């Protein structure tokens, strides 16, 4: 099996692992958002969604373990790639303005938005996860109200969502390109989808605390 390790330690191999794990997170973001949108059905719908989710039991644990493994792979490779890429140009340009216009704000900031997201995930899990926060005495709606009533957490959450949106804006199309899915008919659509998806993430998740506080 050493061949698998060798293949995935090449530059393309590492990038493809980044892409596949990244696509998994996009899938997670999609389901996470769809589920949480239940808040627009009122707090009982939101609480019912959470209860149904937790009722999945073992299935949920499998998904969680899968996401944690993917996160470890994604972050470890990101760190390796970041330092390898820094080493590849020891002498910087005196003029570095990238006037060609290939780079975007999102593509430029991927390592940094990634790092911020990691921090955000920690804060988010410690404030919401049923593994950490006791949900027997309070339901998820009450917890969310309590968290978002604190200005600091509300700000961290909104900022976190924005950072995720920027990461996704480059990450989505980039992942497709890296796994080789670049096609003259579909790529323009995928590139637009990147932007649309980022906007949906920003507005979709960003509106949740406002909806929750409004229903309080």
């Amino acid at each position: 099996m050493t061949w698998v390790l060798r293949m995935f330690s090449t530059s393309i191999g590492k990038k493809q692992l980044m892409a596949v794990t990244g696509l998994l997170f996009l899938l997670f973001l999609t389901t996470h958002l769809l589920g949480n949108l239940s808040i627009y059905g009122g707090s009982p719908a939101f609480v019912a969604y959470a209860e149904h989710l937790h009722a999945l039991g073992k299935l949920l644990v499998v998904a969680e373990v899968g996401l944690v493994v993917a996160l470890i792979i994604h972050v470890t490779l990101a760190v390796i790639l970041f330092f390898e890429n820094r080493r590849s140009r020891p002498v910087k340009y005196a003029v570095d303005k990238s006037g060609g216009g290939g780079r975007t704000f999102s593509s430029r900031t991927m390592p940094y938005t990634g790092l911020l997201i990691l921090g955000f995930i920690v804060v988010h899990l410690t404030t919401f996860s049923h593994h950490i926060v006791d949900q027997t005495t309070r339901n998820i709606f009450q917890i969310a109200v309590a968290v978002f009533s604190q200005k600091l957490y509300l700000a961290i959450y909104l900022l976190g969502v924005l950072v995720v949106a920027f990461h996704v804006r480059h990450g989505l199309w980039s992942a497709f390109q890296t796994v080789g899915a670049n096609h003259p008919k579909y790529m323009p659509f995928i590139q637009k989808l990147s932007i649309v998806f980022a906007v949906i993430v920003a507005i979709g998740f960003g509106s949740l605390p406002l909806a929750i506080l409004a229903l309080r």
Partner: protein
Amino acid sequence: MSGKTINLTLKVWRQPGAKAPGRLETYRAENISTDASFLEMLDIVNEGLTLEGKEPVAFDHDCREGICGMCGSVVNGRPHGPERETTLCQLHMRHFADGDTVVIEPFRARALPVVKDLVVDRSALDQVMAAGGFISVNTGQAPEANSLPVPKDKADLAMDAAACIGCGACIAACPNASAMLFTSAKVSQFALLPHGRPEAARRALAMLAQMDACGFGNCTNHQECEVECPKGISISNIARLNREFIKAALGSAEELPVIK
């Protein structure tokens, strides 16, 4: 001939040798015809330097008609200068305004070390080519042209990929100094044709392994390479290399070669 001339301030990277430290030196480029090419402008400046008894600026060039891939420096932060799909030798001074300050630096990458001034050592690109950028055929009579049908669209794409002149601007433009555009173009020009298919898996792995061993960075899809490539090589070639890698890594019996 317009007969128009301009004066420029040049800031040129001067470095006497590979190990020696370098720095930007300021020179005046006076009475430069707007019909001159960028390299001709450098020739004029060098003539002046030579007459003053100074060392002329070393820069690479050969064909001066945009086909050999020898020229190339970073002009005001852009490999081959500001014009799209234009090599430095084909860039004309009419794209500059009188009084402009022009900063000229060598391509920067660990894998393309500076030899002198603006000249960089691009043997890493040759090593990538030597690793697999060929097809193995027995010599002999040319085969009958129609014995291997090549669809027109595939032939066109292969031709587009083969337009890469190996100048290295993609590496210079890449924020990660990755050579993916070059390598993917070279892999693609064979992978797209039936003649290249038998060795496609071996070739993709060998060229990738060599590219990694040379110390290039990893592609993170900034697309700067495509924008700066003088031959307009598309990043869809990079996606093709990514596909060829999957086929070779997971779908063929080929092993990743060990590069010493």
